[in-house]
């Protein structure tokens, strides 16, 4: 396939969203090689705990082994092919046992036992041959508890891959008095009838809220005016934010980095209420007031770790994007406890997620709708090219320590940046993508 024909400097061909062939190639060249988020180590606190999820279309199991190490292997019994662990979290006492013929495996995936072993004499079967053990994924790496894996032996080093957005993961954890975070409260799962890239593009797209979310911010304002004399409690404050005027959005900063990553600065702050003060005190008690202020001064909305996840550092949300097919995407939303912070702060995290990220969110539903409308429109012959022109050519190298590019808040820089990495991966490169604007 000629990948180059699909990408221009500020436009992409609709085939990147609707072609089965492109999707299949993405699963191979992007999800088959990039560092993909698998899970957080707090989901498997003890040896024998496991978390079953997907990397691209591959079912994988993340386990904690006897020496506390994290293993990730394909969820496929080497005997007949049955999956050996069900989806979600579970625990096993020291070994995995296939439900079909009871082959057993150690927590690191090594074959331990096979029934009717006598019958394997004089065959090419060998208990110690790795091909009869659970197959490990090629590379596993973690940063501050966030576990990623790559299905390819070769490719970018994890440290290099993460470099641009490492500061977001640091801030995610530094906000905890103990310096660590833990998954808490369950997981929301939302299905979108659209290509996975459409969701990624939306995460740092500040051009859409005023139009897309009009019904929800008007609904919140109507209630505030009719019942609360204009006051906006936390839940309404979150919803109202999408209706901020155009200048508010263009005054934000967008930062873009190699490998398709980016982040935007915060849309709104946590309220200055007794809970926030109590939380600040708990953080300051551990790290000192100055450091606590510095940590909370880093205030970001969505960070994008392309092509698999998006942390929201200020409200402890973590969205994982799992492509299902060319026009179906699963988004999983995790919430995190800041270890050592007051319980009420976690409750506010849940409230935030209930309003914004639940399948029943009155905000997200209009997003999911317009994504599906894009998918339908792009499937027509109404035009081959998709515009990414907004503020193209105007992004500047960022002089701060993180490097990368900076653009005005309403630039389509993050989208162009994602497609630079996409182009690099799809051309069988490492995903590292030097922007034409920077060069």
């Amino acid at each position: 396939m000629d990948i180059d024909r699909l990408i221009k400097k500020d436009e992409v061909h609709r085939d990147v969203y609707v072609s089965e062939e492109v999707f299949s190639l993405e699963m191979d060249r992007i999800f088959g090689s990039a560092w993909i988020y698998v899970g957080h180590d707090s989901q498997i606190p003890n040896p024998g705990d496991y978390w079953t999820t997907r990397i691209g279309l591959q079912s994988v199991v993340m386990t904690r082994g006897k020496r506390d190490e994290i293993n990730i292997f394909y969820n496929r019994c080497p005997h007949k092919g049955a999956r050996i662990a069900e989806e979600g979290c579970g625990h096993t006492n020291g070994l995995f046992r296939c439900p079909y013929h009871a082959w057993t495996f150690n927590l690191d995936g090594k074959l331990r036992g096979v029934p009717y072993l006598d019958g394997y004499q004089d065959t090419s079967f060998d208990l110690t041959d790795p091909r009869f053990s659970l197959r490990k994924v090629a590379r596993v790496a973690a940063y501050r508890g966030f576990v990623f894996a790559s299905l390819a032996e070769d490719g970018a080093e994890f440290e290099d891959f993460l470099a641009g957005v490492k500061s977001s993961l640091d801030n995610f954890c530094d906000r905890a008095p103990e310096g660590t975070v833990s998954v808490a409260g369950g997981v929301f799962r939302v299905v979108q009838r659209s290509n996975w890239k459409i969701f990624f593009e939306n995460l740092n797209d500040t051009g859409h809220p005023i139009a897309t979310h009009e019904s929800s911010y008007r609904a919140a304002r109507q209630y505030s005016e009719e019942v609360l004399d204009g006051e906006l409690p936390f839940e309404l404050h979150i919803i109202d934010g999408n209706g901020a005027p155009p200048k508010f959005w263009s005054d934000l900063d967008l930062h873009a980095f190699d490998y398709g990553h980016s982040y935007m600065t915060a849309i709104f702050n946590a309220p200055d209420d007794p809970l926030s003060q109590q939380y600040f005190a708990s953080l300051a008690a551990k790290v000192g007031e100055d450091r606590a202020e510095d940590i909370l001064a880093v205030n970001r909305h969505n960070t994008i770790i392309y092509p698999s996840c998006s942390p929201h550092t200020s409200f402890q949300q973590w969205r994982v994007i799992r492509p299902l097919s060319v026009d179906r995407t699963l988004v999983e939303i995790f919430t995190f406890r800041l270890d050592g912070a007051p319980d009420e702060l976690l409750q506010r995290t849940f409230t935030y997620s209930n309003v914004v990220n639940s399948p029943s969110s009155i905000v997200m539903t209009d997003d999911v709708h317009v994504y599906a409308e894009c998918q339908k429109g792009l499937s027509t012959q109404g035009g081959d090219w998709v515009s990414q022109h907004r503020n193209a050519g105007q992004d500047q190298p960022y002089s701060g320590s993180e490097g990368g590019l900076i653009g005005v808040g309403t630039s389509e820089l993050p989208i162009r940046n994602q497609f630079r990495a996409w182009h690099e991966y799809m051309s069988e490169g490492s995903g590292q993508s030097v922007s034409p604007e920077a060069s």
Partner: protein
Amino acid sequence: MTSVNPQPINSASDISYEMVCHFLYREARLLDQRKFTEWDNLFAEQGMYWIPLIEDQPDPINHLSLAYEDSMMRQVRINRLNHDRAWSQKPRSRTSHMVSAIVIEKICDETNRLVVGSAFQMAEWRSFGLRTFAGLYTHTLVVSDGHLKIGEKRVDLIDSGEAFEPIEVFI
């Protein structure tokens, strides 16, 4: 509700099984008729609408919920459903509820409360087709100013942990 409760209700034990059934059927019918404000008026002042995320979820505060809405959040949802630019409501949701197996599980005269269990199915038509929700309702009903009101409506979906397309109307 005057047609259902011609006599003022003084305590939980004044409430007959038939009145409870009628209350639940009427509640479901108001939703299916999109009379959301009338539906919302069935709730007591502090009444909550709750869809837990997991089976046997003990509490709505220390865990995520598919929905946990007080009067404010229900009214904001209603405002949105009535807004011209609720894009995902074009065409708007149409629903049909079936409520059955209604059982009065508990009556408490001291607090004037009843706990009522039932099974339900809700079919919903959206632009992407027809889908079904199924599960158990647990209504905590309270007697307030001579009327039956909803203290809490708990909706336990049998597939609450499933991946969903957006849920917009009340179940």
